[in-house]
């Protein structure tokens, strides 16, 4: 039903320029608007209340927190294949994302298309900065477990760097490095875990690992790191100093839009791929802001058809710097994420809506 062949046929996941994106991406999103209007009662009600309020220039962006409060779905119950759950870092409540086979397949495929751009087609030896128990319980993965599994597709000889007590297993890591000496290696972990349990420990013990030539991909938010004054440039400096890692790609993505992730380019900007877009919204007026101004991040993705998550208003603050003219040469909007909107200010944009749609 949700045919993405046009996107899959592009040379790279950053092929479309602004005009092409306007035409292809946005017409695809409009089709999804209509699809979800038709198949999800709750979405229809929120859409009409946002339209009445005149928000977002008549587009509808669902506040992400609604996925914590309701099970939003646009497919029949018998077509539900899996329900992804995640607990937010700041909330006890869990997001529930309803997947059918088609949406799940698109998620895997798009993730591959995007990551191949950075890692190549061949699978690399993979060092996971986490402990193996995180994927043990197959029936209930944490978001962390699901993320590791998703990224495992790009690796071979998957090796966990930490033990269950979160200590580095240096013997195992050294053996992995020796085995793959001189070959590119793919390292993946969640930003905070990589910092706290790997880089910090290496730095404090004065140990150095030879992981030069490897690619580090990490994600999961900076909140805890910003609190201890670690930003992207500090993170990269320590990656180079402790492990000789020169290529570091952070990515921004949310469980509500798995697959169409925003990866950091060689110039340190997060980039919208062909499958997705980003807009910055003024939290006071709920209108779009021009490039260069900080506001609430709204993300769009052509993947979700089983749940109405194709246009979402996040609780993150960011700034878009431009489109198609990043010095790295990739097309698409490029941006920075600054962190979470302070809690009190989030009322108004998502809570009011939650209140309006209570059945």
């Amino acid at each position, binding site marked *: 039903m949700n045919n993405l062949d046009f996107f899959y046929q592009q040379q790279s996941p950053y092929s479309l320029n602004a005009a092409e994106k306007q035409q292809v991406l946005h017409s695809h999103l409009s089709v999804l608007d209509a699809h979800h209007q038709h198949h999800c009662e709750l979405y229809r009600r929120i859409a009409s209340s946002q339209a009445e309020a005149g928000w977002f220039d008549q587009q509808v962006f669902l506040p992400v927190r609604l996925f914590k409060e309701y099970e939003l779905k646009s497919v029949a119950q018998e077509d539900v294949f899996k329900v992804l759950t995640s607990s937010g870092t700041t909330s006890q409540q869990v997001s529930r994302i309803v997947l059918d086979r088609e949406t799940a397949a698109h998620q895997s495929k798009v993730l*591959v298309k995007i*990551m*191949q751009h950075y890692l190549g087609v061949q*699978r690399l030896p993979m060092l996971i900065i986490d402990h193996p128990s995180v994927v043990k319980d197959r029936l209930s993965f944490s978001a962390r477990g699901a993320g590791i599994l998703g990224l495992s597709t790009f690796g*071979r000889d998957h090796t966990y760097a930490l033990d269950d007590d979160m200590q580095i297993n240096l013997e195992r890591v050294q053996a992995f490095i020796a085995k793959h000496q001189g070959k590119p290696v793919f390292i993946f972990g969640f930003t905070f875990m990589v910092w706290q349990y790997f880089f910090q420990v290496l730095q404090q013990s004065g140990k150095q690992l030879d992981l030069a030539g490897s690619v580090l991909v990490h994600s999961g938010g900076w909140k805890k790191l910003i609190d201890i004054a670690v930003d992207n440039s500090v993170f990269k400096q320590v990656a180079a100093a402790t492990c000789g890692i020169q290529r570091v790609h952070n990515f921004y993505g949310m469980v509500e839009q798995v697959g169409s992730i925003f990866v950091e380019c060689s110039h340190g900007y997060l980039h919208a791929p062909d499958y997705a877009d980003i807009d910055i919204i003024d939290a006071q007026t709920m209108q779009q802001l021009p490039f260069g101004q900080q506001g609430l991040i709204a993300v769009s993705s052509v993947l979700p058809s089983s749940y109405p998550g194709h246009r979402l208003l996040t609780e993150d603050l960011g700034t878009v710097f431009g489109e198609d003219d990043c010095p790295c040469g990739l097309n698409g909007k490029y941006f920075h994420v600054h962190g979470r909107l302070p809690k009190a200010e989030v009322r108004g944009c998502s809570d009011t809506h939650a209140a309006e749609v209570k059945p």
Partner: protein
Amino acid sequence: MSQATLIKCFAESLGIPAEQVTDELQYNTIPQWDSVAHMTLIAALEDAFEIMLDTDDIIDMSSVAKAKEILARYEVTL
């Protein structure tokens, strides 16, 4: 290398009886063939047939029939 090796890889990686490994069997249609088992299966196939599959193959390998098709590309004779 044979059909039997392929069936053995599937049966052992997914933990299902060999009779259940038919061309029609599809990824994610039985609880045993989930994303975790899929990576185990890939590793088993690579070992058994001495090949290195790339990321596209992993995503494309959505059924037993499809697995045969992909292995054929690596000049594996079944």
